[in-house]
């Protein structure tokens, strides 16, 4: 009895194994005859000297340490450079075979990059910095490539929007003037506080651009979004509006369920709120800070050390993808965005409906169903030296971490520069750009060759405060709300 049973178990296990598809490549070995023969010598003798000249020239080829790569991404339209580099064959041109894998949330994505399950990933700008300074998960993560500028929005629920309209008659029109500040939100926050509750808003990750943007927008109107402290890692100390983490795809549902009254998130989740009629985008991050850095491409320092040439090849492909995405015709129309939206709408990439992705990707943004506006710079993938990894961007994120208390103690100005240099790697970027220039794939004026890594000072913020990356302490002290340092 037992014997037959064992045999049948074993047989069924075998049968199950046999059902599984095999995966052998099925190709025999290639004839690799490196050794010279007499015939080769004879043939070489016949060659004219100029034939040999041609053979020696040609651009330097990168020695790829690794050709099969796995990159992670979150289902947001700003993952476009990675997806496009794969789909338009830019990775293949470099000899790379790249698999792109959707990740469930930013934490898992970062953990997978650190643990080596992924070679690299689409990351929030704050993630490499936070990991490197040891806020949250600690690991030395670097970025040689900024993926895009702008691309986020702040959406509030319909009822909050109505109350904002009551507070500010200017908002009552079909197409209210922009930028919309949080001023009209102040009375709502105050009345909620008076009745013992706090307005709840969602953002996607503690070190995300969205968190800092939402805080910036609120604080610019005098609303305290709460401070992080040693013991309060939720960032709610003294908060007048409470911010909480919700994964991007859950935002509309969470808003609809009433757990939060507003959120800051990337596309397509603001346009979805409009399409579903559950909320109103009041501000894009372009309004909060014109051309602010958004996502980066991150790898661990360890990985970059082990695969230096592969790293350069990856950046080359990403730069070309960025350039392709931002290509315009003579009238300034973005010519490739429809195709990009079509690719991104595939279910293994972003997967949202084509129309919704197209809304923001092709230079328009719906604030309400009746309010469609041109936003040519809503998604920037190449213009304005966008892809270059600027130290000044890193410093800005560090100032925000200090401003809201994620960095608990004061740091000197040099520290900001030092950390930015540890994370942002323009040298890799420039190496890749140089190769692309040699191959004639980009123009000389598309790359800031001689920059010191700092963008010129700018006041393109919603509150007009000036930011100079060389003076992080002065910048910190120019805000009303948030930590101030006197070093």
């Amino acid at each position, binding site marked *: *009895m*037992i014997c037959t*049973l064992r045999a*049948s*178990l074993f047989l*069924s296990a075998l049968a*199950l194994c046999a059902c*599984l*598809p*095999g995966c*052998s*490549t099925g*190709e025999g*070995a*290639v004839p*690799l005859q*490196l050794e*010279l023969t007499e015939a080769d*010598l004879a*043939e*070489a*003798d016949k*060659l004219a000297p100029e034939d*040999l000249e041609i*053979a*020696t020239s040609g651009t330097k*080829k990168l*020695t*790829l340490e690794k*050709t*099969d790569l796995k990159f992670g991404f979150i*289902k947001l339209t700003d993952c476009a450079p990675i997806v496009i580099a*794969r*789909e338009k*064959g830019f990775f*293949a041109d470099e000899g790379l*075979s790249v*698999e792109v894998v*959707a*990740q*469930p949330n930013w934490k898992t994505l970062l953990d997978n990059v650190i*643990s*080596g*399950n992924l070679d690299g990933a689409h990351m929030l700008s704050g993630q490499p910095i936070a990991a490197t300074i040891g806020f949250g998960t600690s690991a030395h993560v670097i970025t040689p490539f900024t993926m895009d500028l702008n691309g986020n929005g702040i959406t509030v629920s319909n009822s909050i929007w109505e109350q904002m309209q009551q507070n500010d008659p200017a908002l009552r029109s079909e197409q209210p003037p922009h930028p919309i500040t949080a001023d009209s939100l102040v009375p709502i926050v105050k009345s909620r506080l008076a009745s013992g509750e706090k307005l709840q808003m969602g953002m996607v990750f503690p070190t995300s651009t969205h968190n800092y943007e939402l805080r910036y927008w609120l604080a610019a109107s005098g609303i305290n979004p709460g401070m992080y402290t040693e013991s309060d890692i939720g960032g709610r100390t003294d908060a007048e509006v409470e911010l909480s983490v919700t994964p991007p*795809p859950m935002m509309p549902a969470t808003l*609809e369920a009433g757990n939060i009254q507003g959120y800051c998130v990337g596309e397509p*989740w603001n346009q979805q709120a409009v399409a*579903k*009629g*559950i909320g109103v985008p009041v501000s894009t991050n372009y309004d909060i800070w014109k051309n602010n850095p958004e996502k980066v491409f991150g790898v661990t320092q360890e990985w970059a050390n082990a695969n230096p040439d592969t790293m350069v090849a990856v950046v080359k492909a990403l730069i070309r993808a960025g350039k392709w995405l931002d290509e315009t015709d003579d009238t300034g129309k973005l010519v490739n965005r429809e195709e990009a939206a*079509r*690719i991104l709408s595939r*279910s*293994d990439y972003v*997967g*949202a*409906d*084509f129309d*919704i992705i197209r809304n923001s990707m092709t230079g328009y943004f719906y604030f309400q*169903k009746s309010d469609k506006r041109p936003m040519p710079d809503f998604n920037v993938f190449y213009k304005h030296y966008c892809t270059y990894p600027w130290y000044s961007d890193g410093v800005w994120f560090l100032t925000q971490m200090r401003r809201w208390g994620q960095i608990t103690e004061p740091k000197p100005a040099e520290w900001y520069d030092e950390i930015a240099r540890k994370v942002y790697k323009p040298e890799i970027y420039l190496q890749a750009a140089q190769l692309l220039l040699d191959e004639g794939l980009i123009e000389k004026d598309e790359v800031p060759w001689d920059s010191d890594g700092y963008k010129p000072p700018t006041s393109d913020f919603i509150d007009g405060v000036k930011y100079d990356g060389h003076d992080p302490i002065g910048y910190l002290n120019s805000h009303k709300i948030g930590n101030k340092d006197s070093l």
Partner: protein
Amino acid sequence: MESLKYTLLKIIHVSGLTFLEPVVRLCYGEEPQLQLKKIGRFIVIPSLTFLAFLVAWALIAPVYKTKSGEVPTPAVVWDAAQGVKRFHERESDKQVAYGLSGEEREASLAEVSEQRAVLNAMKANADEQVAAASEERTTLIAEEMEPLATAYETKKAEFEQAEKRREAALIVKATQIDQRDIEAKNELLAYIRGHKFQTEQERELLKTLKAEQDDVRNLTYAPLQNAMRFQTEIAEEEQYLAKKEEILSKANRSLKLEEEAARLKELKLQYAATTGPDLMPIAQQMLQIEGRMQKIVDSEYAKPWTLPMQIMRSLACVFAGFFLATAIAIPIGVLCGVSPTFMAAVTPFIALFKPVSPIVWLPISLIIVGGVITDPETHWLMVGMSNLPLIGWLQINPAFIASAITVALCSLWPTLVNTALGVASIDKDHLNVARVLRLNFFQRLTKIVIPSALPLIFAGLRISLGVGWMVLIAAELLSSSEGIGKFVWDMFNNGSSETFAQMFVVVFVVGVIGLMLDRIMIIFQRLVSFDGAPAAI
């Protein structure tokens, strides 16, 4: 003939497909009336109820609308299933294209070019249709909007004026009130309350009017939707063909090899013609190319995971967890059944760990597995597994192992408890016989204890596998280990109009696989039972 009949009946009985029994008997002309009655009960009625379910679903689904989209009808779900299948086929096709060489590649390339030419002609047509339909929709909306918009504007102006008038009147009234006139002051208060109430109501009315406008703006215009669906289909086909063409003409494995081989040849001649220190760099370049070619030979098209592959991986994962659970549960269960003392010792643990949810086990096992396998790319276990012939393609990684462990931890309890019960309830006579025969412990175990406990053990295993399958989907979803769970989560994250329908596809896929696993276990259970355990559904 008769013997075939009994073989068939035996198979049907063992596999638990008893509803087929009357069909077989009817074929042999055995009591036709009774068999027909049975067929009616066990085949016709279930089919009818399922059909009724489908009809009810098709009728009710469109009525219920959510903001995330309409509940999909069976037809929409079927379409979504086709979409999932199409995606799999396209990706497999690209994989094949990557590996083609020689004439096959050229033939395939020619075919793709032809298909693209046909498609291009259709594309222009589709674009026109969409443009036309979109125009129609715009005019339609404009027509409907006009009266609504005017009504809204007039009402709004009217209400604003009325509000101003009321306010002015109130102010006039207020100025007339004497400072000590309590009555008049209270009256004014009431008036202001009324005014506020009125304004509120007017605002509500305006809101509904606005909502009406929004509804019109949202108008779904069937011709446009159809045209757009057609356009999307063509655009997706075009995208796929373009990529395939690119692979065949540029990024194909054999082409890459040819290119490198040509360069190698060039370098080789140069190497033959050169003397002196120049030899060094050339030789190094040659070796580099050699290495590169080796990598190209091993390279594969980076195919994304598709549902059929994910199903296979989920099955592999659930069986890994199930075997692990069995390996733990049966020995402990036997010991529990044999020795009441041992049972007493482990009872607290069973009681404590049994109700713990997979959501809790998963992060724990993720952390533990992550701690053991710090660098999956170089860890011997991972490297070894990825080189195994049959399971290499599964890409076993720490997330897979953690999911399997979670499955094991959640599914071992039914087996454990059933084994203990089975062993403990062995007929005392049997044990007495063993004592008389002076069997030692091991003999007693293999000759008496396990054989008589087997039916119950298998009943436990069957429940365990069912639990494991349920747990697995959740574990994969949370650990983002490729499989059906990850598919569900990705589709949910897409938030597209297809999402809802794709979820339903998964419901059926998971259900059917779960059913099949259960059937397999029933067969085993029958095989080990002496009396043939009663048929279970």
